[in-house]
């Protein structure tokens, strides 16, 4: 739970303490909360909290609704097709948009003429992206004289295939698709570079020729950004919120009994959201309404309000159902801004959904990496030094680092890292489920296994020795037990098909978004509703919110109406970084508690009893001291003076405060996964037979949904380990597999038996004590599979994906 290196690192300045400061309470109280892992070290922790906080919840086994395997409240709508995703939205008079995108990886647009497209029957608006201040908003707001032609000074330099240039809106998708082809463009192509290694070399085509630097670049947590750029190389970044270098790495290597030094490579992975990125934008004089496939409704609203100069109250963003984002669906996006622009021009709603090819080319990706990892070990197993250098490309974007697992997962007094970005002429990267950490674990966890073998130790036992994370220790124990872990000598199976066992573990910071609010409304007819802009991105947020309120009010989850994903309601958090459950559920519980107290107060008045004498459970309101005084929840609400009682609450600070600033909580989310593989040494084919995934996410609010999330994380990890790989044509810059046929995801026959071991862990952090699971579920999978493949064949693979070709090459089979 504790950071093993905490005493040895210098934490940066707290983020926004000066701006916001910790919340002060006029009145506080002390509560005792469950703390630890039931069956292992469960005890109580006393916390001083605001007087407004609800009573402590006991552990799950003592609850009625929370912690129970509960079917999704919206499952029926999903399986019957009644659920409306953004792509399903149809509005009266709606137009359809289509982008013109760059066909070249590097080019200048010498001229552009939209006149033919504008004249095409059925076209209602055309918009061209202009590279000048205010370029993405309309300068000719009256549309009196829309420009037909543009010159090269106004137009963007094209730096990747798929870069948006312009778009049209038309009466049908077919018309839009045809019309966009009529935009005449004269390109002057330029030299380009696509490969990480070549882009680093002297003389490589330069992606950004001139960079303007400035002063203060430390943000508000005091972390220095990587601002040095030479050619296409930018960086290095040497620190993060966990601090910078520590100790003396060279001294640490000198003290080591042996040193391991290896290079690892990971590929570019695209998000492959089954629902592509897109919006339906409806610009009306009094309100801009945007139906968005987004992980952050409030963020899209804020972006559009900022860009179009609108008050936030005049922008409404709705995400009722959403089909996957994995980090790539934050912000309005180029499609969101373009659809809004086209709607404003046409005076009609515009739907602009990316197609699958556009999704691959321009909607983000997990950057690749080339990692050089060097670690020193003593013969007693202790790690004396870690030195990690990485290069990665997020195409024309930045953020290709490899995370903080090497810095933070194991105790080591001497650490340094240098993480470089390399620009290439390829589509920009985007946050992707545990950014950096998935790449980092692939390297780190293989090296830990190598060290264990060198030490003659079982990999699980070796991690028990060097990993001080208490919950992960339990995960290893329980996971190994479920897996039937028994160390097997690498490559020892006879015959061509060899079985292997491997494991790896992960580490994720517990982030909390304090801008998380919700309203709970109890109506006189006994119905109850939750309202927040927080969105359910497919993880089951609607269901856990219903469970939280049901538990508080003594009802069942199906009794609660969940109205979320709409910025008309109080702001909820964006859903990324595994923040949602830990951020919004305490706000919802606290709002439910306030509304409950209001209702009970009115009942207490009617019965002439003390408020503290009343409670709710099993659909009843009752006196705790007089068994004659009870009534159903519905009867109680009929006694309300008004038609409803409502309460709104926001996420309070963590009980006990934050480790860093206002949002980085104490306690890391650990994860451990075990994999069993079969490797055919004649064909190189790898089959993952079984995965046991041991995880914790604080209080599991709905184990059924947690398991579902873990299944998804493991499947995504298998795709990353074995199949997925964005392949660019080195002659044209095109992605040759920009589809879901040649870009292979795991399908049913590649999905193994997945067994989940869920550790219930209480940290006494909030009124629900829940945390997220999205990131932890995905971090260790590829590392575990790589270690299992080594165990099967006795030869280690250092580059993802682990293809048959690489297996055969490693085995020396031609």
């Amino acid at each position, binding site marked *: 739970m504790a950071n093993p290196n905490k005493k040895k690192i210098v934490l940066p300045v707290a983020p926004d303490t000066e*701006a916001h400061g910790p919340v002060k309470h006029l009145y506080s109280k002390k509560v005792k909360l469950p703390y630890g892992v039931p069956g292992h070290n469960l005890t109580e922790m006393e916390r001083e909290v605001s007087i407004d906080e609800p009573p402590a919840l006991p552990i799950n086994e003592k609850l009625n609704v929370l912690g129970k395997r509960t079917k999704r409240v919206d499952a029926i709508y999903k399986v019957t097709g009644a659920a409306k995703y953004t792509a399903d939205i149809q509005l009266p008079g709606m137009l359809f948009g289509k982008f013109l995108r760059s066909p070249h990886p590097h080019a200048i647009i010498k001229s552009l003429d939209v006149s033919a497209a504008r004249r095409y029957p059925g076209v209602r608006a055309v918009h061209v992206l202009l*590279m000048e*201040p205010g370029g993405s908003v309309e300068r000719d707001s009256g549309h009196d004289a829309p420009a037909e032609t543009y010159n090269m000074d106004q137009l963007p330099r094209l730096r990747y295939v798929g870069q948006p240039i312009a778009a049209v809106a038309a009466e049908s998708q077919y018309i839009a698709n045809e019309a966009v082809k009529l935009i005449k463009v004269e390109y002057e192509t330029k030299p380009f570079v696509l490969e990480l290694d070549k882009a680093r070399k002297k003389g490589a085509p330069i992606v950004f020729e001139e960079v303007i630097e*400035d002063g203060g670049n430390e943000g508000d*947590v005091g972390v220095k950004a990587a601002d040095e750029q030479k050619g296409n190389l930018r960086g290095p970044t040497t620190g*993060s919120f966990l601090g910078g270098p520590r100790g003396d790495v060279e001294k640490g290597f000198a003290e080591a009994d042996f040193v391991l030094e290896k290079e690892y490579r990971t590929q570019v992975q695209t998000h492959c959201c089954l629902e592509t990125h897109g919006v339906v934008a409806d610009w009306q004089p009094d309100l801009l309404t945007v139906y968005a496939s987004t992980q952050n409704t409030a963020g899209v609203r804020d972006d559009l309000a900022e860009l179009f100069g609108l008050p936030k109250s005049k922008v409404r963003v709705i995400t009722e159902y959403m089909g996957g984002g994995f980090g790539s669906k934050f912000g309005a996006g180029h499609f969101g801004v373009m659809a809004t622009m086209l709607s404003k021009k046409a005076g009609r709603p515009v739907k602009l959904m990316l197609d699958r090819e556009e999704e691959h080319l321009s909607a983000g990706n997990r950057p690749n990496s080339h990692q050089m990892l060097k670690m020193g070990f003593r013969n007693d197993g202790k790690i004396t030094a870690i030195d990690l250098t990485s290069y990665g490309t997020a195409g024309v974007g930045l953020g290709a680092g490899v995370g903080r697992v090497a810095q933070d997962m194991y105790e080591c007094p001497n650490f340094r890292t240098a993480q470089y970005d390399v620009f290439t002429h390829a589509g920009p990267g985007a946050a992707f489920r545990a*950014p950096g950490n998935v790449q980092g674990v692939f390297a780190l966890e293989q090296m830990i296994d190598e060290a264990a073998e060198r030490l003659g130790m079982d990999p699980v036992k070796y991690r028990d020795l060097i990993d001080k994370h208490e919950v992960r220790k339990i995960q290893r124990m329980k996971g190994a037990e479920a897996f039937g872990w028994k160390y097997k000598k690498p490559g020892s199976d006879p015959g061509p098909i060899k079985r292997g066992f491997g494991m790896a573990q992960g580490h994720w910071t517990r*982030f909390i978004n304090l801008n998380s609010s919700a309203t709970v409304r109890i109506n006189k007819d006994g119905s109850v509703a939750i309202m927040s802009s927080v969105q359910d991105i497919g993880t089951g947020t609607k269901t856990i919110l219903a469970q939280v309120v049901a538990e508080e009010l003594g009802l069942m989850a199906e009794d609660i109406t969940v109205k979320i994903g709409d910025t008309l309601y109080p702001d909820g958090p*964006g859903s990324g*970084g595994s923040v949602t459950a830990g951020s919004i559920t305490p706000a919802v519980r606290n709002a439910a508690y306030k509304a409950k107290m209001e209702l009970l107060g009115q009942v207490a008045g009617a019965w002439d009893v003390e408020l503290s004498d009343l409670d709710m459970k099993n659909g009843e309101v009752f006196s705790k001291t007089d068994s004659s005084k009870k009534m159903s929840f519905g009867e109680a609400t009929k006694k309300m003076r008004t038609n409803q009682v409502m309460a709104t609450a926001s996420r309070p600070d963590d009980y006990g405060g934050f480790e860093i600033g206002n949002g980085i909580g104490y306690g890391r989310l650990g994860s451990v996964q075990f994999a069993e593989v079969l490797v055919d040494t004649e064909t190189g084919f790898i089959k993952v037979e079984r995965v046991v995934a041991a995880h914790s996410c604080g209080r599991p609010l709905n184990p059924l949904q947690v398991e579902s999330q873990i299944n998804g994380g493991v499947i995504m990890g298998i795709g990353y380990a074995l199949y997925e790989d964005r392949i660019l044509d080195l002659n044209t810059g095109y992605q040759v597999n920009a589809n879901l046929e040649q870009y292979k995801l795991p399908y049913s026959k590649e999905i193994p038996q997945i067994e989940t071991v869920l550790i219930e862990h209480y940290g006494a952090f909030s009124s629900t004590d829940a945390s997220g699971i999205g990131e932890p579920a995905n971090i260790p999978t590829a590392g575990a599979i790589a270690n299992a493949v080594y165990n099967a064949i006795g030869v280690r693979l250092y580059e993802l994906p682990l293809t048959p070709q690489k297996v055969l090459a490693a085995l020396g089979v031609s």
Partner: protein
Amino acid sequence: MNSPTHYCRFLRGKNAYGTVEGGDKPFLNFDPATTTYWCLRTMGPVGPDGQPAHLSNCGNTKRKCFAAPEVEKES
């Protein structure tokens, strides 16, 4: 209004914590190595002047596309 910063109000970033915005909000630069940046005006990782959108570039008042923070438009 929060304490003003000098980052362009059209700068956006996404890191493990969530979305961070330029302008008058604190810019939470938790981990620059894994943070992606983009410019709201161009809808991409490049500003209107063709330079990368990044924390170290977008606080530069000399940059012709720099837009100073404004008070939030809440009504």
